[in-house]
Structures are given as structure tokens and as C-alpha cells.
């Protein structure tokens, strides 16, 4: 009896990585399917053909080079934002403050661009990037230190820091960095001085025949490099190992001699540094000044993209592209169908909700399967042991004896 059971258990045992990747893909495809299906229901309720709508969405990005350029240009900020979220997530923390960190980073980057105008172009750009990073890190340091020193939960403190950041940046634009060269426009009070040309990130699109209006700049390669760096830190460096240990089980991490507080602060600083670069694309490759009311919501969208990419750097790059394709679909949707363009935001919401729920369900199923298998293996050992004992002529022995 025992041997028969043993073979069946061994036959159904697939390698762990196959199960992981297969499970991830299955979960992702299921989530996509659910979202597309629910989206179709809305489209049909609206009296349109879902196939027409979805192909219109795709044609916006893949119809011509400029559409693709737009998607790529918008992926950069999303990658930075999602990486910032994922870094904290790996350590078991939730940084909802990416939005605040990014707008503070942009205010300090704008300060650098308007102050160090005497620097040559490469150095000025570098100082803009450094100040963006520093601004984000300073804003991320507050909730991190409060968490470690006082136990204040980072979710609430980062939400509050977002509120403070919005007011602070509004004040900066109204006060210290105000637009002084008052021209004829009606909103002259609502932005900073224009940045010098030397502070701007050069265009990248013209190498690939993409119009400069798509604003594809060197920010995208920077974001991909950042993703590679985050991968390296998380997979090949001590901080990454410690972060995963803390995220998986703080108790075991502490027992292993890891200083949890130090890891949490380091992760938050790394997260803030990445968040500080979120606005570079929009400010220094597109607009050329810091407008008031600069709450683009990319910090929150980054959370969605991080979920979609399951907090892995590679996944995040692809998730950011997918998000960009959907966003780009707004325009073509309006041109080619009667469905309002806001359908895209609904579709994005459906996608992210179904991803979150599907992964949660998948994780639980995987967990219970692993538990069951562990139990089966244990039974198997017991069974084998008792068979051995039976052969040895000690039929009365029980499990307790084996253990």
C-alpha cells in the first residue's frame, strides 16, 4: 500500500520553479482574462462591440512609431514609481508616500535647475538628478525613522506626508520658486521660472524616427538601468537578502542577527531615492517648468504597476509598458468608437483589482498545496519507516516511536 502511494506522490511532484513560474503566468493570464471579460460587459452595456474597442485600444500604441514612442516615454516614470513601491514591499512595508516623495523630489530638482545655472549642461543635469533623489530620500526618511523609533505605522505616516508635501510644494511655487518674469499669460503665478535648456534631458526618439512630440527621452534607459540596479541589490547584495528575510519573517530575521530597523530605514531611503526621479520625465523632458497643483498621481499609479509586475523589476518594466498601452488607448478609443475614453481608467482598475484578487487566491492555493504536500511527505516517511520496521519484524511499533 505504502509504496503505491509513494509513487503517485512522486509523479505529481513538479519542480518548484516550474510551479512558481507556471503559477504566476496562469494567475496573470486569468487576471487579464477576467479584466477583459468584465470590460467587455461594460462595452456591451454601452452598445458597442468589445472586439472593435479592444483593437482600437491596441491600435493607439502599435499603429505607428509615435504611438509606441509615447508608450515608451510614459513607461519611465511608472517604472521608477513602481520600483520605489516594490523595494519597500520586499521588506514587508507599504510606501504609499511615493507621491509625496516624488513631488518633493521634483521641487528640489527644480530648485537645482534654477539655481546652478552656471554649470555646464551635463553637470547641471546631474545636479538636477541628485537633488531629485535627495528630496525624495529626505521625505522618505521621516516615516522610516518614525517607524523604527516610535513604531508609527508607515502607511498612515506616508499618507500624512503626502498631504504635507502637496501643501509644501504649493508654497514653494507660490513663494521661493515663483515665476518672476511675468508675461501676458493668465496663470503666471502658478508655476516656477522656466528651466534653462541646459537642465533638460535630451531627446532619444529621433534616433528611432519618433517625433519629438512623443517626448521619448533618456529617462527610459535610466529607468531600465534603475530596474537592473534594484534587481542586483535585491538578488545579489546583502541588503536584498536582509530585506527579503525581514519581509518574510521579522522574527527569524532578528534571530539571524539582522538589525530590522536598519534594514527598514535603508529600504525606505532607497525607495525615496527612486521616487525622487519619478517626475524627471514630465518636468525635464517635457514641460520645462514646475507647475502648481503638480499632483500627477504617478505615485499612486506606481502602486498599481508594482502589483501588476508582482514587485519584480522585470515584471515592473513590462507592467509599466502595458499600463502605457492602455493609457495611450484613450485617444484612439475616442477617435474610433463611441465609448468614452474614461473606459480606459475603468479597465485599468478592473485589471489591477483582478490581479490583486487572483494572486491572493493563487497564493492561498499554493500555500495550502505546499502544506498538503508537506503532510503527504511526512506521512510517506512514516509509512516507509513503518514498512521497514515491519520487515524487521517489529509490527507493533507506532509513529510516536519513529519520531
Amino acid at each position, binding site marked *: 500500500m505504502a509504496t503505491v502511494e509513494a509513487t503517485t506522490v512522486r509523479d505529481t511532484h513538479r519542480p518548484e520553479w516550474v510551479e512558481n513560474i507556471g503559477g504566476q503566468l496562469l494567475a496573470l493570464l486569468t487576471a487579464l482574462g477576467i479584466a477583459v471579460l468584465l470590460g467587455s460587459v461594460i462595452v456591451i452595456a454601452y452598445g458597442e462591440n468589445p472586439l472593435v474597442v479592444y483593437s482600437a485600444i491596441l491600435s493607439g500604441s502599435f499603429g505607428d512609431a509615435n504611438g509606441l514612442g509615447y508608450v515608451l516615454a510614459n513607461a519611465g516614470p511608472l517604472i521608477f514609481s513602481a520600483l520605489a513601491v516594490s523595494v519597500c514591499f520586499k521588506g514587508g512595508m507599504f510606501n504609499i508616500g511615493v507621491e509625496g516623495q516624488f513631488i518633493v523630489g521634483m521641487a528640489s530638482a527644480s530648485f537645482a535647475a534654477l539655481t546652478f545655472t552656471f554649470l555646464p549642461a551635463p553637470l547641471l543635469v546631474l545636479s538636477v538628478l541628485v537633488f531629485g533623489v535627495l528630496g525624495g530620500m529626505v521625505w522618505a526618511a521621516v516615516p522610516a525613522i518614525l517607524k523604527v523609533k516610535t513604531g508609527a505605522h508607515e502607511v498612515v505616516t506616508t499618507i500624512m506626508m503626502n498631504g504635507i508635501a502637496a501643501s509644501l510644494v504649493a508654497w514653494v511655487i507660490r513663494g521661493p520658486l515663483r515665476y518672476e518674469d511675468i508675461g501676458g499669460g493668465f496663470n503666471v503665478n502658478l508655476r516656477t521660472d522656466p528651466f534653462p535648456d541646459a537642465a533638460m534631458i535630451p531627446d532619444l526618439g529621433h534616433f528611432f524616427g519618433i517625433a519629438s512630440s512623443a517626448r521619448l527621452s533618456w529617462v527610459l534607459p535610466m529607468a531600465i538601468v534603475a530596474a537592473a540596479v534594484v534587481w542586483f541589490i535585491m538578488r545579489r547584495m546583502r541588503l536584498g537578502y536582509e530585506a527579503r528575510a525581514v519581509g518574510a519573517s521579522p522574527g527569524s530575521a532578528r534571530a539571524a542577527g539582522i538589525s530590522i530597523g536598519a534594514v527598514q530605514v535603508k529600504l525606505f531611503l532607497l525607495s525615496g531615492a527612486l521616487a525622487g526621479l519619478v517626475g524627471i520625465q514630465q518636468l525635464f523632458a517635457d514641460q520645462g517648468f514646475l507647475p502648481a497643483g503638480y499632483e500627477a498621481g504617478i505615485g499612486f499609479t506606481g*502602486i498599481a504597476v508594482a502589483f501588476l509586475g508582482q514587485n519584480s523589476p522585470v515584471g515592473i518594466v513590462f507592467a509599466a509598458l502595458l499600463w502605457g498601452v492602455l493609457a495611450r488607448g484613450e485617444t484612439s478609443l475616442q477617435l474610433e468608437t463611441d465609448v468614452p475614453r474614461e473606459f480606459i481608467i475603468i479597465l485599468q482598475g478592473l485589471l489591477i483589482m483582478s490581479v490583486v484578487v487572483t494572486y491572493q487566491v493563487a497564493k492561498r492555493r499554493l500555500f495550502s498545496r505546499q502544506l498538503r504536500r508537506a503532510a503527504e511527505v511526512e506521512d510517506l516517511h512514516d509509512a516507509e519507516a513503518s514498512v521497514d520496521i515491519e520487515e524487521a519484524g517489529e509490527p507493533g511499533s507506532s509513529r510516536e516511536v519513529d519520531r
Partner: protein
Amino acid sequence: MPLGDFGAAIGIALTYFTIIYLTGLGGLFSERSGIVNIGLEGMMIVGTVTGSCGTAELTPELGLPWGPLAGILIGAAAGAIFASIHALATVTFKVDQIVSGVVINLVAIGVARFLSTIAFGQATQSDSGQPRMDPIDIPLLSSLPWGLGKAFDGISPMVIVAFLMVIPVWYSLYRTRWGLRLRSCGENPDAARSLGVRVSPYRYEAVLLSGALAGMAGAFLAVEVNLSWNEGQTQGLGFIALAALILSNWNPIRLMGAAFIFGFAQAIPLRLAHAPIIGAIPPEFIRMTPYVVTIVVLAGFVGKVRPPAAAGRAYEGSTGI
């Protein structure tokens, strides 16, 4: 009149109080049942657009006080329907409550725009100057001397509703079996279950109630205060309500005080910009006070707050593996 501005500021503070208090009560029910709700802002947003739409559609048929009232109730109902997503995700599918709340806030913007295009033919606003309930003067208080009476002059009936709301909320939470059980689900769901309380239905009810109150607050903002729907009109008030809830230590009576203080902070830049001392502070710094106060309190520098013990954790059920 030197105090005239002060009276006017209190009047505005009462308006903000109504929004923050109603939304905060929503958060109170949800978190007391063990479900953290950072999606309050999103639920408010859905309330603003549906409330405004309901008012615009129903006022011609129902007449004046009833049309806007129906609009506000529609906003509350829409908030509850929207909150059911949060309930389904967190209670049934046991998705992380913070994650779900973030998604709720993200989705709300899209839902609002989508509904607005259908209802008003434009994505980010409705026609301005929509009908509202007739404002009322509170007898006695509105005749206070030195201009203080301005505070109670021409206020929306909903302000009084918000003030009276504390009675049913306090009673239901602390004097009924339902409230005791709801709170026990938020403190120790395992103990509640062992005494025969079914945790999930209570959490569902609390989250739906939470959405209804936040939606009502949003509808009040759109219908009674701004007289139109505009994208972004909630201005993060849902998060300020969350801050007030923390400051109140999850208590409906103390929440009134917190909501009024934070409401007053919102009113200062609008009416007391030229007052001595206060006028010297940039309005942006006054606007950030609710957040700063909350961080200070949370960090334990002043006072001590304790959230419901089980808030944030999914209830695994008695058959948990």
C-alpha cells in the same frame, strides 16, 4: 466687526466639519470591525458625482428640499455600492486591506469620470449652480452678538444632521448587541467567533456603512457646498478624515472635536487670512496642520492612540489551515 471674520470662519469650519465627520464616522465603523479603510477618499469621490447627478435629475420632479436630499441619499447609496468592492476584496478574498484601499482610490477617479461623461456629457465637471436645499438660520445662535452669529446663519440642514449623527452612532456602537459584536470583530475576531458571532457579515455591514457615510459626505460637498461636481473637489478630505479618526482614538464623540479642529484649519486660509498673527503664516502651512498633528500624535510625542487590535488583519476563519 472684529469677530465677524471669526464667525464666518466658524461657519465654514462647520461645513468642513460635516464632510470630515461623516467620512470619519465611515472610517470608524469600518476600522472598528477590523477593516482598515484608506479608500474613504475614493468612496467620497463616487458620492460627489452620483450625488450631483441625482440632484440634477430629481430636483425638477421632486421640488426643492427633496431633490437635493434625494441626491445626497443617492450619493450615499452609490458610496455603499462602491464600498462593496472593498468588502468583497478584503473580507471574502482576504486581499490586503491597504492594497484594496489604494485600488479603490485609483478606481474611483475613473468611475467618477465615466459616470460624469454619461450623466453630464463631460468628464471632469457638471454644470455649475445646481439646486441645493434652502439654507437655514439656527434660532438664538444666529443672533449672537459681535458677528459671531454669522457662523450659524444660512447653514445647510445637513450640518445639523451631521451633528445629530453622533447619537445613533454612539448608541448603536456602545449600547446595542450589534455594536458590541461589531467592535469585538475588530478587537479579537477569534474570540468573537468562539462566542458564536459570525465575523464576515459584520465586517461587510461595517464596510458598506462606511461607504454610505463617505458617499453621503461627498454628495453633501458637491450638492450643498459647491453646487456642482468638479474633479478633485474632495481635495484629500478623505485622508483628513482618516487623520481625524486617528486623533479621536476611534471614538465617535472625540471624532466630533477632531473633525471640527481640522475643519477650522481648512477655514482659516479662507476667512482669517488677514487676522493678526495667523495672517503672517502662509496658508499652505495652515493647510498641512491636520497631517502634522496626526504624525505627532501617531509617533506618541503627544498623547497615546490605540487602533482596534485586529484592524488590518484578514479573519482566517475557524477552519483556517
